[in-house]
């Protein structure tokens, strides 16, 4: 690739902009995750003993829920391991 200071500067500014957008979006994304969790619990709650009315809905949607089930599993395992994630999310440091 041809080296030029202008393209390097442009690249730097684009990456800086990307980083800012990423930081701004990260915390909002957590809110989205909570909504997804609620949705998954609502639809699949009966499987873990919650009296969720729409069981028939879960069965009907099951073939399309593969990714959600996988994510729910990972998040269930991560639920007791939030300290580091909170540190990273809040950017806490000395």
């Amino acid at each position, binding site marked *: 690739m041809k080296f030029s200071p202008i393209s390097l500067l442009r690249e730097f500014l684009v990456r800086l902009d990307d980083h*800012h957008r*990423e*930081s701004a979006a990260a915390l909002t994304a957590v809110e*989205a995750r909570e909504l997804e969790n609620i949705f998954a619990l609502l639809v699949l709650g009966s499987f873990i003993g919650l009296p969720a009315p729409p069981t028939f809905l879960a069965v009907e949607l099951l073939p399309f829920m593969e990714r959600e089930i996988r994510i729910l599993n990972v998040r269930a395992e991560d639920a007791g391991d939030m*300290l580091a*994630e909170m*540190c*990273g999310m809040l950017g806490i*440091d000395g």
Partner: protein
Amino acid sequence: MTTLIILVGLAIYVLLYFLYGKKLERDVVGATDANEAPSSRLYDGVDYIPARKAVLFGHHFSSIAGAAPIIGPALAMAYGWVPGLLWVWFGNVFIGAVHDYLALMASVRYDGRSIQFVASDLMGKRTGTAFYWLVFFLLILVVAAFSAVVGGMFVKTPAIASAYVWSIVAALILGVLIYRVKMNFTLASVIGVIMLAVAIFLGVEFPMPATYETWMYILFFYIIIAAAIPVNVLLQPRDYQNSFLLYAGLILGLLAAVFAFRGFEVPAFTSFSPILTGGKPTPFWPAIPLIIACGSLSGFHSLVASGTTSKQLTKESDGLLIGYGAMFTEGFLSTIVVVAIAGFGFTALQTAAAEKGIEFTLTASTWATQFTPLSSKLGLSQANLFIQSYADMVAATWLSVIPTQYVKVLAGMWVAAFALTTLDTTNRLARYCVSEMALPLKGTSAGLYNFLTNRWIASLIPAFIGIYLAYSKNFTILWPSFGAANQLIASIALMTGACWVHSKLQSRFCHVAVIPAWILWVTVTAALVWFMWVPLPANIASSPVQGWTVMGISIVMLIMNFIFIVDFVKKYYREQVQSK
């Protein structure tokens, strides 16, 4: 000299990144892009999401960058500029960056799980549980140390206080523009930067003078309120706005340091044991990690690296730049601090003494005994000394077109932003720690459990104790205790990394993790014992409640420290015997 040290520092970092860092990547961790990273393997669009290398670097760096790399090296000037700088460079390359990188890569290989999880898995559950206790203590001491820093800064330069208050107003407006008005993001960003500049202008024009005690009360309520309101109202727009401050401060500092062409005024070496912590002679070894703290290495980094960064790493080969390189960038920030103070700190102190009419007796031969007491007497210690030196350094170059008063406020806001963002996130973290720590009480004493985990009670405990400690103004006691908690977390994380390299990777180069882990553990343990033995008893005599609070925390930390080493030795050496 200023330029030379900056260039030497840069050369050391670049060289060792490619020599030592690459060796670490290749021979110790064996990072390979053939292993699919958790960000794509477990992609969920929220936590597990591949991020571009440069973006993730920026995100990770702004998360790990704090006020300590500025304050620690400023305090270490009591030894002269060489010892502090050597610890920054040595600690960065061989301990801090290794610690960050191993935490990141261990987490990546553990599906993005935290270093706490890895520690539980490798060294025993109690090691993992201990993270909660250490982080909780650290949060209390962070509130204490950083409130004292901010309070001292706001009293010394009321313009910084005013500018920071205006910047909070600007952040609230920015939040409304982005989330309520849904303004175009770029336009909102431009408005945010303009508002930041206006805040600095208003700060300079309309300073807010108040006493140290008043600021402590204000900070106490600020910490509680900031943690209670939704993140998108203040925290998120303020963090976004602060990232501009961080980069502006770094770039301006770097340019000024390179173009200052100035000899050093501060002596290179004064004494192995100058007057520093609690007014007592403070030996370089073992006390230095407690003084420099995050400028060289930090335990929080392992949590940040394994908390969010590992879930967003696109491929393993990106890990070196992000885990190892970001720590170097923070070390480079400390190098700029050392250069600024070494080049301009003496004149700053001399000018301050002349303004206050105090006899100035600081010379190379009296530096060890008089630097810390005199700078404190002049109100020009730690952050304040850096701010003044930084402004003078900028004024000594072609950047002097920017009025010094504005540069001073910019540097002050930079430090304040670092300190306050940490302060107002402590409560959110403390609530979580308390609820996890109190879990064993749930079955036996439900009433006490409910009381402790009440969101307001869990928030009030660290804020109250922290501000109470800061109220005493005994900064040179608070700072090393904060340093001790932080470095202890680093010590456990590094031992975890060493165990991981040894038992999971079975690397024949595992000594590059094991040796620094031992060096750090021995040094921090000796430092903590020294701290409890020498400066703390004197502090207890002058302020008993504060002194005993710090002593109590230190005793628990020391006991935990010995439990960790037992777990580490059992795990590490038993496996070694078995493998033979």
